[in-house]
């Protein structure tokens, strides 16, 4: 076992990363050794990244131990860079997180100064001055490069600043100069934010945290009301809304609610979240309350503005959309389905259900089925109810190809009075592979008038005896 991380006290005592635990214990018997849990570390970092989105929507993860915040255009909202940094560090301190931070004009410089320097806010022209006394490790270089540089006496970044570039690149590779340029701000370094930035969002910071569900919903409606003019200006309605709840103790909850049609009505947005909160009730623990609420619209679409008329004819689409949204917010996107017909001879593939993701799907079940030959679609011999997986039955049938005489399904014997068939449906070898057996379907009626759809898989006389299945029930 080796040490992978140290706290400040351990660093002072002279431990170093990579040291064996036994050796460390020999140096100082009273140390606490905890097993590393990288997954939990990452989860904590992700949680902190969510929490940091109170300062800027652009938060990027940096390895396992850091975060980049792009605060371009955000600092003035919080009273300037200094105030932002102080607020951030003070809040993190109260959350029990030991953090260091620096603000500068490039990500590389901030990284270096936060870890190895003493400044916190650097102006644009101070990059060279701040970097010069820092060790080579501040440049985010591979360890071998740092060691090679150390062997030739280049220990501080200042040693590189004045050196000619071409020999450095030849000897130590392009990475060195790239990292140096990035730290100096000569080379652009794109940050990849953890989450896409929503086109629109509205935020409310509360002096006193709220706990009640009704308060949260009331504030959500207020936020939606603030978003509405923006949406109207763009001529759009939201297809996906996301509510971020920042709890006092630093936990952040993200609740997303999709809609089946573009939506900008604040009441209905709040109604959507009412259903969502019902659905996630157990997972959402208000604790000591939420201090910041943010409503954003990650996905929006063109919204057709319709004029209300006096004819009194109720508009059908809008209540239907409201209903679909309520149901899907509560039970998930798969809870409402529409039939989908497709080109297949295998009955269970020919008609399936697909989720009602868009209201425009209603009335379009046959869009893809236009090319299906008419006789197949018009076939009367299709049951009204179909078992998704055919149920095996014991049947007594005429050989070699006759209809069954009687069969036992779910432990009940049915005597067959009449039968129609067979309708032979071959397996789709391009999907099922060569050994797919063909099925002979019979439409049968038992002596009390129940109509069933049975099929025989295989043939009598073949090496394996055929098997009979119940596949559907007719009206």
């Amino acid at each position, binding site marked *: 076992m080796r040490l992978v991380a140290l706290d400040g006290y351990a660093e002072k005592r002279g431990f170093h990363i990579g040291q064996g635990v036994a050796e460390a214990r020999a140096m100082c018997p009273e140390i606490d050794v905890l097993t590393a849990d990288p997954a939990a570390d990452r989860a904590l970092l992700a949680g902190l990244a969510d929490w940091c989105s109170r300062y800027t929507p652009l938060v990027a993860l940096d390895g396992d131990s850091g975060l980049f915040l792009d605060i371009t255009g955000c600092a003035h909202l919080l009273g300037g860079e200094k105030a932002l940094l102080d607020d951030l560090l003070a809040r993190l301190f109260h959350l029990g997180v030991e953090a260091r931070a620096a603000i500068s004009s490039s990500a590389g410089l901030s990284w270096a100064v936060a870890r190895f320097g003493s400044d916190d806010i650097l102006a644009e022209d101070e990059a060279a001055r701040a970097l010069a006394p820092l060790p080579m490790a501040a440049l985010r270089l591979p360890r071998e490069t740092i060691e090679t540089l150390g062997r030739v006496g280049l220990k501080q970044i200042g040693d590189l600043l004045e050196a000619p570039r071409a020999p450095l690149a030849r000897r130590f590779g392009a990475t060195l100069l790239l990292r140096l340029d990035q730290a100096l701000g000569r080379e652009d370094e794109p940050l990849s934010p953890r989450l896409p930035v929503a086109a629109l969002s509205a935020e409310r910071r509360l002096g006193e945290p709220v706990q009640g569900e009704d308060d949260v919903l009331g504030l959500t409606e207020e936020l939606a009301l603030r978003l509405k003019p923006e949406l109207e200006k763009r001529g759009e309605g939201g297809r996906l809304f996301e509510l971020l709840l920042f709890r006092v103790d630093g936990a952040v909850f993200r609740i997303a609610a999709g809609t089946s049609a573009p939506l900008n009505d604040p009441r209905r947005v709040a109604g959507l979240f009412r259903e969502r909160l019902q659905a996630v009730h157990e997972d959402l623990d208000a604790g000591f309350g939420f201090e910041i609420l943010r409503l954003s619209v990650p996905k929006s679409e063109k919204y057709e503005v319709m004029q209300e008329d006096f004819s009194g004819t109720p508009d059908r689409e809008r209540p239907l959309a409201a209903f679909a949204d309520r149901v899907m917010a509560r039970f998930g996107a798969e809870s409402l*389905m529409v*039939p989908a017909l497709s080109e297949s001879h295998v009955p269970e593939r020919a*008609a399936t259900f697909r989720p009602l993701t868009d209201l425009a799907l209603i009335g379009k*079940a046959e869009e893809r089925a236009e090319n299906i030959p008419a006789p197949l679609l018009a076939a009367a011999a299709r049951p009204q109810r179909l*078992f998704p997986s055919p149920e095996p039955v014991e049947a007594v049938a005429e050989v070699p190809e006759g209809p069954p005489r009687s069969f036992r399904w779910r432990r009940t014997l049915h005597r067959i009075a009449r039968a129609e068939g067979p309708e032979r449906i071959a397996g789709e070898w391009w999907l099922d592979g060569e050994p797919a057996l063909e099925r002979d379907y019979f439409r049968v*009626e038992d002596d009390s*008038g129940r*109509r069933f759809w049975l099929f025989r898989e295989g043939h009598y006389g073949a090496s394996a005896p055929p098997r009979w299945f119940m596949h559907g029930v007719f009206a």
Partner: protein
Amino acid sequence: MADRAVERETVLSLRETIARIENRRLPGVVRAAKAADPGGFRQREEEEPGRKALSLGVPDLDDLLEGGLPLEGMTEIRNAETRDAGAAAGFAAALSVLCQKARLEKGEPAAPVLWISQSMASNEAGMPYGLGLKAFGLDVRGLVFSLPRTVKDALWIAEAALSVPSFCAVILEIRGNPAALALSESRRLHVRSRAGHVPLLLLRQSGHEEASSAFFRFLVEPAPARERPLPDGSMLRGSIGHPVFNVIAEKSRAPAPLGFLLEWNPHDRRLYPVEPLPAAAAADPEPAHSVARLSASSGRSGRPQALGELVAFPRAS
């Protein structure tokens, strides 16, 4: 004199209220009083207020239902056993086809049918099958299907659907007699359905008779289908024609349960009453005059085989 007129007015309005609650036609006295106009003008013949019904096209059944399927309120359809679920689902589908058709005939925009099926009901009796329902006459383009896990979820969705004026019918399929759907819940659904003007068909799969708020309850049993007609008017022997249901009105205003044999014709999209099959014809597959007029030819390839068909029994060992 004035007092008596006020009393009479009160009584008439009470009778009207009662008729509305009981979903009956207005009593004749009330109708006459309402029709009489003090100005002496003849009023336009109006649709009877307080009751909307859809004629099923079968006079006896329509009489029993006092005009037809109530378009506001709950109607219960149940079947006794799971294996009869096809018949009950077929009857419910037939009623929703009639609702769709009535909307089209009235020139209203087409509205979808919502089929809510508790997942256990669909697992046991099969999922509604798009192609089969299409062949049955239902416009599957306007079908929305929902498969909630529990009865409670199903009731919630049904209630939400009944409060929007977007559906032409709501089918709620429940298995058995769950405690979550007792009298008060059915009352709630019924009131919602009346307020929302959407017919609710409660399809109770393999359930017992249970007191509910539905106007009518039907027990649907399968019945042998008629044979397919041939172009020359005769019937194709041994074929299975249009589906036939035995619909028994268990709960209605009739003094005793009444049974109807109804055939659903998917092409005409309407129900036809049919006569019960003569018992003998069903039992005896041989024609009435089975004696051959000519002596059978012998020794030829075309002669009937002496033995019956060969049947494959499962192997004993």
